């Protein structure tokens, strides 16, 4: 398949101009009733004079942002194998019901009896997540996965404090998501890194050596970021618990084992689940997501407040009475609108569908791995003899001899109309390509992607310029990303200031 992205170009230097350049007047207003006009007064010392906001008519707004959308690529466009991100299809019914007015136009402080439907969705979602993980208590408050990590790390911290233990070290495998390290640090922990063994899994002897009376816990991703299942998870759990620590599960990769493995049986004490990954809610160009956090019984009093509960009479309420709560991690109850979509997704799957999701996501990944690893120049570095789970990581080091890097390969994939994988992550694999097809990909999609990889590998050997200058068919050619950090222009205002400075200098 080939692909030519829309390119709206206003002149040779600019694609779509900004709204500041397109500004054409004032069009929108909210009329004040005549009798109320006298009430709209403010003291002069508080009055704002200058305000540089552009104004566009509705048709101009529609065209501007529609053109921008056309210069963007979504999951409905084509394959989006961005490893670790689980870019599965977002079912459209979920979007439709989430736009229901009775769900959108409700206030978090409305009387409880007027939001029973909303509370029911939250309660049922928590219940389903409990069943899926084996962790009996959930909060839906965290707004994202990393926010869930922080919540979990703070729960660990408070738990140890309550036990009068000074445990200030968090163990994190070297291959973990960057956010794990950062979340642990934000919760005040010192991070202890564990290197991988030759299979890419946690090095057990290194782990044994790392634990001590200062170990607060460990954050583990399973399958890990190499897409490999940590088969010795029970040993890991024993080591951590034996040292008096708690085991935290990063749910970013749950898709591989959803409905197949209970987290509680793996010895997990606290877990976050990304509703925008495993549970199909859309990623919104980077958010909103949601990061539900589940805990074992012993930790239930530590969850953020409030949590949703059900009374004997079938009504629902918000419970603020958790005695040891870490407090709120954000205002109100979480990204409620996202929860509706995850709820609907699970209702559509039902018990029968859960395992199918895991099985097909793993099958699709293994099918892709089987073919991709045969391409000359592409190597598997870790877990060579094992099946991968929902994703896999290959190294493109073999193309270095042609002067081609993973970045070039990725950019060339764009010309074939597929979104590249996550690149250069995990760091333990050189020239990494982290590929996650998800269960949403048809066999034709899989074959198409594999074929693109094959062709590009050939191009790398025979016509590397095609890769080095890629992409050729996107809205814009390869960007100088380093410049954006070297000479940052982070707003239109900054751009104007820099332009006028440059203008002044050139007149001197």
């Amino acid at each position, binding site marked *: 398949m080939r692909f030519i992205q829309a390119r709206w170009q206003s002149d040779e230097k600019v694609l779509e101009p900004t709204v500041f350049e397109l500004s054409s007047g004032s069009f929108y207003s909210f009329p004040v009733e005549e009798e109320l006009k006298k009430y709209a007064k403010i003291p002069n010392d508080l009055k704002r004079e200058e305000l540089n906001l552009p104004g566009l008519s509705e048709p101009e707004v529609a065209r501007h942002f529609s053109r921008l959308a056309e210069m963007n690529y979504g999951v409905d466009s084509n394959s989006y194998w961005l490893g670790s991100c689980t870019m599965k299809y977002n079912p459209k019914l979920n979007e439709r019901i989430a736009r229901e007015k009775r769900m959108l136009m409700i206030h978090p402080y409305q009387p409880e009896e007027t939001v029973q439907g909303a509370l029911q969705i939250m309660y049922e979602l928590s219940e389903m997540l409990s069943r899926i993980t084996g962790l009996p208590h959930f909060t839906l408050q965290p707004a994202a996965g990393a926010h869930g990590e922080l919540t979990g790390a703070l729960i660990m911290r408070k738990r140890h404090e309550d036990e009068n233990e000074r445990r200030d070290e968090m163990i994190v495998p070297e291959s973990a998501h*960057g956010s794990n390290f950062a979340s642990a640090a934000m919760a*005040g922990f010192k991070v202890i890194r564990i290197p991988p063994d030759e299979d890419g899994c946690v090095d057990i002897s290194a782990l044994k050596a790392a634990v001590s009376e200062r170990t607060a816990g460990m954050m583990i991703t399973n399958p890990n970021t190499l897409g490999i299942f940590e088969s010795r998870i029970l040993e890991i759990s024993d080591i951590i618990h034996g040292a008096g620590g708690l085991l935290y599960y990063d749910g970013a990769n749950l898709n591989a084992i959803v409905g197949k493995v209970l987290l509680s049986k793996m010895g997990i004490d606290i877990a976050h689940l990304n509703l925008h990954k495993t549970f199909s809610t859309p990623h919104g160009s980077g958010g909103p997501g949601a990061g539900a956090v589940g805990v074992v019984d012993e930790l239930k009093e530590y969850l953020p407040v409030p949590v949703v509960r059900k009374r004997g009479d079938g009504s629902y309420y918000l419970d603020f009475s958790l005695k040891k709560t870490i407090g709120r991690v*954000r205002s109100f109850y979480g990204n409620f609108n996202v929860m509706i979509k995850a709820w609907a997704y699970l209702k559509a799957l039902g018990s029968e569908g859960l395992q199918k999701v895991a099985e097909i996501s793993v099958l699709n990944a293994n099918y892709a791995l089987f073919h991709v690893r045969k391409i000359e120049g592409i190597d598997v570095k870790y877990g060579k003899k094992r099946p991968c789970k929902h994703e896999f990581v290959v190294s493109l080091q073999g193309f270095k001899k042609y002067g081609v890097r993973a970045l070039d390969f990725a950019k060339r994939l764009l010309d074939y109309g597929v979104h590249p994988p996550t690149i250069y992550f995990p760091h333990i694999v050189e020239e990494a390509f982290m590929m996650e097809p998800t269960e949403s990909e048809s066999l034709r999609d899989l074959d198409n992607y594999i074929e693109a990889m094959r062709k590009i590998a050939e191009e790398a050997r025979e016509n590397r310029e095609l890769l080095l200058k890629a992409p050729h068919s996107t809205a814009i050619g390869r960007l100088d990303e380093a410049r954006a950090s070297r000479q940052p222009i982070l707003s239109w205002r900054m751009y104007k200031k820099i332009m006028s400075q440059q203008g002044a200098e050139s007149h001197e």
Partner: protein
Amino acid sequence: MHRRLLPNIDLIPEMLRRIGLSDISDLFSDIPKEIMLEEPPDIGKQLSELELEREFDKIASKNTIGICFAGGGCWFHYVPAIVDEIAGKQELYTSYTPYQAEVSQGALQAIFEYQSLMAELLNVDVVTASHYDWSTALAEAALMSARVTHRKKVMIPENIHPEREEVLKTYSAGAGLKVEKYSMDRETGEVDISSLKPDESTAMVYFESPNFFGIVERKAREIAEIAREKGALVVAGVDPLSLGIFRPPDADIVVGEGQHLGSYPSFGGPSLGIIGVKMDARLIRQLPGRIIGMTESFDGVRGYCMALQTREQHIRHEAATSNITTNESLMAVRAAVYLSLLGKSGIRSLCEKILANTNYMAERIEEIGLRPMFNGVRFREIPVDGNVDWVEVNRRLLKRGIIGGSPLRKLFPGRFDHLGNIALFSTTELHKKEDIDLLIESLKEVVK
């Protein structure tokens, strides 16, 4: 029904065969048996698309919507149709963080425009691509202040939104920050400047405008002077919408909420956390989360990509300025569409409408023997003191199709009792004069 979502559901044997396997369990052979489930977890029977929609409708009917006057940091504003239309485009809502900039110019430019529009409103130079909500933006600002000043104490006023205070305290536990409060002026509803006494250990002095009670802070300049004298950073929490008409505060870091700029209250989430700073390298380097920057392609065309990523967790790990990864990008895009449509005159007229409603409503509330608290300048919210059972009042209002003011004693037991028995009302452009009149007439009857 899950079949509709799984294109390969009937191809499993064929695909296994092609990769030399015979059974799907071969792919899970590396998972210890004792942790595998034989039966899937019981989450109920799968529903067809039609059944699911019906099931949802049944649940949705248990929510009641009314003419809503509930206040407290989540607001009902009109969402122009074009905002939903744009945010509903699959290219924008299904895509991920724009790691591949060349194929993601649309989202990148839209977020850059959000940053730029918000920077104008806040009168700062740099705004991040978004944070979770106001409360977490404040918490991040406190952490930033501590890093910049190498100090540990943060000061917040009594009239802060209580949930923001709680979130700040949650985050402070991890970073070892000490949260100290200063008082409010019970006459005006603004801060009590005489109680603000930062010292050499103070990293940040925070204030809100309009604050939790909807009072615009007139002493912003004095607060800033007192804070800076001790070398503390000034952090202002603002409602960006109010800055269509009110002078933006002079602060080192500005935080706020943008949920109401083109998005729905939605039971309190998703929201849009805002963090902005002036052109000050030491602050910019400490900003949390993604920022979109303008650059050029190698053939000289203006383009956009993520900038200053070395601050972020995926590169810097535990030394990152924050752990934030997924943010609230689509909310930012919605705000960009909204602000472009309204423009300067639209947002001004919106502010005037809100102002008119607020002052009119306060006057009418007084007429019926309840007490709109404080004599400061109001915007959108009105705290009302009265010797009534606000929960019961709300129950009766509900029968008339009205969602009443937020009862603070019930929502935040003990927190504001010393100020009175308060319900926090809120009014926006969604209320016509007759809606306010209806509220007043109804209140008059039910508090009798």
